[in-house]
């Protein structure tokens, strides 16, 4: 059984078995990233396929196999950004305001929500908000970096993050969640 670094080296030689093993190793993690950055599972699959092809075609440029985990995550994020520029940027996002969540039985603690439930909230954010929220809150980019990645100013990134959080809070409030303390 190859370890992760040996797997990377084998993939750099385009060994098909290693590529399959590498895919199986990262497929769930990377699909998770794709789901966060997109509105629908179909969009996530588009980005997912494109990202993996890029990864395998460029893995020979990875000089430090130890960093492969971060490298593949960045690959997916950048693919998602490209997708956003190509497909999502000019779409209208009006449906968010019409979301009606009337379940009064939701727990009042945010931390009690599952990952899937949180993901559903993020998916419903307008595309630009969702991009900034993911990049800043979950993946750790600062506003300057986000501004460069998305082609917007740093202040735009900050304001979009603020609005994204505001929309989420509003949505959560409709679910009866007003406390954001950790359990």
């Amino acid at each position, binding site marked *: 059984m190859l370890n992760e670094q040996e797997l990377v080296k084998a993939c750099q030689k385009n060994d098909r078995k290693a590529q*399959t093993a590498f895919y199986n190793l990262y*497929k769930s993690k990377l*699909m*998770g990233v794709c*789901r966060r950055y997109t509105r629908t599972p179909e969009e996530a699959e588009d980005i997912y396929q494109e990202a993996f092809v890029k990864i395998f075609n460029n893995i020979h440029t990875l000089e430090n196999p130890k960093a492969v985990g971060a490298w593949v995550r960045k690959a997916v994020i950048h693919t998602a950004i*490209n997708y956003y*520029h190509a497909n999502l*940027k000019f779409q209208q996002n009006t449906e968010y305001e019409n979301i009606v969540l009337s379940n009064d039985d939701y727990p009042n603690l945010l931390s009690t929500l599952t990952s899937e439930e949180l993901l559903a909230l993020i998916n419903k954010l307008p595309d630009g908000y969702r991009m900034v929220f993911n990049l800043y*809150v979950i993946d750790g980019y600062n506003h300057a970096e986000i501004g460069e990645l998305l082609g917007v100013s740093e202040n735009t990134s900050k304001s979009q993050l603020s609005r994204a959080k505001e929309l*989420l809070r509003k949505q959560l409030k409709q679910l009866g969640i007003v406390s954001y303390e950790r359990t």
Partner: protein
Amino acid sequence: MNALDNEKDPFEDIFRDKLFDFESEPNDKLWKSIEPQLPANPARILPYWQMTAVAVLLLLTGIGVYLMSSLTNNETEETQIEKTIENELNKTINSEVISEKNNKISNKENKSIIIEKKYLQNSDKLVPSTTESLVSNSNIQQENSAENKRTTLKNQQNRLKAEGVIPPVNLGDDVQPEFSDGAKQNGLVNQYSKKYTPNKSNKTNRFAVFSGKHENIDEESVNNTSVEATKFSDQRYILLNTLDGKAYHPFTNHFRTPKIKYRGPKPTVYFKESKPVEWYVSAMPLINYYTITANGNDANYVHKIAVNDEADRLGFYTQAGLVFTLSDKFKLRTGLTFTKTNHSFSYQVRTDSLVVQSPDNTGVDASFAELNKVYAQSAYYLGTKIDLQYTFLRGESLSHYVNVGVEGAYKINGSKQLNAFANIAYGITRQIGDHAYLFVEPTYSYSLNQQSDSNSLLLIKPNKIGFNIGINFKLK
């Protein structure tokens, strides 16, 4: 990152904690669509020293083939003409018994009468020359004079005709001696000799002509005639273009320097085709596959064309040049070529000489004499070529292509001559290194123009068949 940009926000922390490592199982069908787009499993990547060794081996093999073929052809470096005029009675025209009274024409029992008519008048290259000669193996030098002998022969033939001994059927007017016009006859002989016996005046014809004017008639030489040269080709397509680390960098650059300015939707460019330039070198043994035909009217006299020695047909061909990528499927290859070819074959020329023998001293047989000739050539060519290469199948490890092109080759030894060839080849290429591709390329080279031997008896197309083996190196 944002650690310094913002104070701790429990709202954000909860999202980060729950979603940073969020995993979602993808549909299995996705891998089926991804897998065909992955870079193919390459051939074993050889270190550069191994690639160099392969190239050197190829060159040494080529040189070895070249030297071996040179050795085997030393004897035929110059055009050889084996003029072994035998009294082959391949085609007996007539056989007549000459009565005893004719024997008194000659004093010796072994005398033979040879009535020669060298070539027919209807051949514009072979000037007709009708002569009669009396050949005496032992006493020819003792004759008083050519004129006396000619007179004797004339008398003899007149007697034979009068008695119906010499049949007039096949000989016709062409065979009739024309001693009455000596000047004309001499002129014809001289013309013939000048044309066909350039450097053989010191040789002695076994059938020494009695008159002394036709000593060399049978001594025909076939000068070393340039023949052929060819070239083959080949070529290759880049199978694994995605392996070229220098081809694309956008993905990597994004990570190293996140200075990305998006000015609108862009098409994906991950599979952008580069158009590299490659240089190539190849060598191949080749087999000369000459097309040999008799020239025009001479078809009636040239026959029994046969290859002397199959090993003589072995040649050597090497080429080097550049390959330009025109598109995904087309490449243009051009370069210089060097060719070493050999060929040797024998053929018979039926002369118009009528040979009459008297094997038993009681009669004679008459037939046309046959000349056994050998055409042999060893030629060196320098040439240039251009090929168009079409890749029609690209598999995981092998690419298949066809190659068509033309080549001009100039013979640099012997008689200078320019030959043109049309080349067609089927090639298979495989990656053997980061920038190196091995290709094999069976090639057929068809001669577009003809050569002829010195007597213009034959027309020769020096076609070639070869098995080209070479390496491409990508330059960019």
